[in-house]
């Protein structure tokens, strides 16, 4: 027997706790995704930090005598990525309207997913065309590993977008906004990451 059964005054009984847990956990996935994205940011900061340190230590950057990658494909890629982010934002707006708009949400989610896939393909093409090999130096190693990890995150994001797209299509998400919001947070992270990597590795680093 526990003391709380004899308690004078107001407590919380079990039914109330269960209701509360159900309501409060509805937005848990969003909070969880924010934390995951925070840890992903630290993960990439480690590589970009090494990039910065290597850059400051090198006399010539990129190293003298190597072919630098072309800017064309990555530039198209980053534009496509931004389009994808914008499409995701539109999808969110449709999902959050007072009257849930399944068709609009679906359309813009599909647009975000298609442009995500296109970006992934462009990234892969740029990767295959890199004019140097991974072991030549720290510049080359960083280039391959950072772009490779970015590609992995684009694939993960595309899978996530595919999942919420399917669940919107089946009508599962008519009453829940948190999965789509969580997917959006992850995808915005990938978009920002793509822009930062483009700026650092291509715009500033190719020279």
């Amino acid at each position, binding site marked *: *027997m*526990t*003391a*709380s*059964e*004899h*308690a*004078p*005054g*107001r*407590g*919380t*009984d*079990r039914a*109330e*706790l*269960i209701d*509360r*847990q159900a309501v*409060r*956990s509805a*937005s*848990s*996935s969003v*909070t*969880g995704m924010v*934390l*995951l994205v*925070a*840890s*992903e940011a*630290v*993960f990439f900061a*480690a*590589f970009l*930090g*090494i990039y910065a*340190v*290597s850059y400051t*230590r*090198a006399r010539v950057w990129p*190293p003298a005598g190597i072919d630098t990658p072309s800017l064309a494909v990555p530039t198209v890629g980053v534009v496509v990525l931004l389009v994808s982010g914008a499409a995701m934002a539109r999808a969110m707006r449709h999902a959050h309207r007072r009257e849930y708009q399944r068709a609009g949400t679906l359309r813009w989610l599909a647009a975000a997913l298609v442009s995500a896939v296109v970006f992934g393909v462009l990234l892969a093409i740029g990767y295959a065309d890199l004019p140097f*090999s*991974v*072991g*030549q*130096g*720290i*510049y080359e*190693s*960083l280039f*391959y*590993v950072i772009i490779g*990890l970015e590609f992995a995150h684009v694939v993960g994001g595309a899978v996530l977008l595919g999942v919420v797209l399917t669940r919107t299509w089946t009508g599962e998400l008519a009453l829940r906004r948190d999965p789509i919001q969580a997917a959006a947070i992850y995808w915005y992270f990938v978009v920002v990451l793509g822009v930062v990597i483009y700026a650092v590795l291509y715009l500033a680093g190719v020279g």
Partner: protein
Amino acid sequence: MTTTDVLAKPAAPRPRSSRVLDWLTTTDHKKIGIMYLVNSFTFFAFAGVLAILMRTQLMRPDNNVLSPKSFNEAFTIHGTIMIFLVILPLLSGFGNYFVPLQIGALDMAFPRVNAASFWLLPVGGLTILAGYLTKGGPAAAGWTNYVPLSLQGGTGEDLWILGLLVVGTSSLLGAINFIVTVLRLRAPGMTLTRMPIFTWATTTTSILIVLAVPSLTAALLMLLADHHLGTVFFNPAHGGSVANYLNTFWFFGHPEVYMLIMGAWGAVSEIVPVFSRKPLYGYRFVILALMLIMALSFTVWGHHMYTTGLVNDSFFSVTTELISVPTGVLVLCWLFTLWKGKLSFEPPMLFALGFIAMFVIGGIDGVWMASPAADFTIHDTYFVVSHIHYVLLGGSLFGIFAALYYWFPKMSGRMLSRRLGQWQFWLLLISFNVTFFPMHFLGLWGMPRRVATYPLSSGWGLTNFIETISAYVIAVSMLIGLVNIIITLRKPRNAPADPWGGNTLEWATTSPPPPHNFDRLPEIRSERPVRDLRLSVTAAARSERSPRTAGPDAAGPVGAGQ
């Protein structure tokens, strides 16, 4: 249904196979918490055997119980297992069991993710240990796994990296789960400044994990890439640098030290007030100190690299010394809690007091080492071995044992033997100090750490001999703890809901709690809701008997054990 009904009418006993399946597939935070503890204590036994082997090798000069290669493997695996698979998961195990209870939640925010983060642990741990089955043996480059030495490792090294990636994922998922649980699932009235300190400590630990473990993951991936994909992150011949490893590893590694101790601070901050019959002195200062330490711990990683000449020693020295300020605040808050308290020396309190004393010694060592001038002398000597064992064994593990003795009745419904607990404590306290205190001297005399043996002419033989004998006594004390648990688990369940006169919500439910945790939560108006409840029950009972003497009692053990 009241709690008594639950106790009076146990479910019909079910076949054993179904009960096993229950444990394997459970998403109940309490069962997962217990599995964390069992898993970690199993790894603890393995790491303990390695420690005993190492001490046996070092017992005499020019000994050859272990070959130098086996010795390197032993200290590598001992350190890795103790840090990643024993201390941190033990604290997570207590966190899993008690954070939802302490905040009045029914479970963690993501129960299935919680199960996943547990099951990744044995997978990762066994992956690391699988190195023993490979031809070249397991990883042997120390738990810090410095390059270029670690890059010369074979399959065992790869298994070490893969295993740690899995363990890191487990911690990260667990940490996100804790933070979301604390943010989203607190009971009505449980504001952040009424949250128990153990829950606070688990939260700050989790924030450290979220922001630091990715740096370890990055370091491990770079190691793997350098090893197999031909990248040159750590190869100075091609523009890489060993410092790239040191920086990414220690950016994780120093916050890691705080991940390993904060939970123990939290448990001690729960235990000291309960057994002093006083509120925790400076509750809000303790929270503030935890947060300050959490933030500062990201600014001190360079103090592991003083002797490399790669970092600004003065900067890192200042930040490191700064951490001792909030840490001192914690210690003072515990001491002021004890001051003029009505102390009772039950085993949890003994271990908590032992923790404070040992942690202060370890902390003072740490302040010395934070001075670059001193560190140039004691770097890589047994002084460092002594320091880390004072903070992690004398600190974290004493805290973990305090927590175990304190919460065992809640988890199992049975009280651990007081007498065996006292034996374990005193044996451990004495043998721990006899083993590790003289290591300070060995360090100052110049004995380097991580050496498989030493010559007779060094004159270190007698000290090492005494330390080894004493290390065997540590093993005996651990066996006493194990015997205590085994004996207790065979006894009937008779622990009361609140055997110690606790303050926090886990004591407001039965021992062990029902699967749904609470039938009813008391009102939460302070950081000590169960004490408030006890006082109001007593006051109500008194006013029924004699209205004139009604009034809140002093903070005595009233209502304890009802």
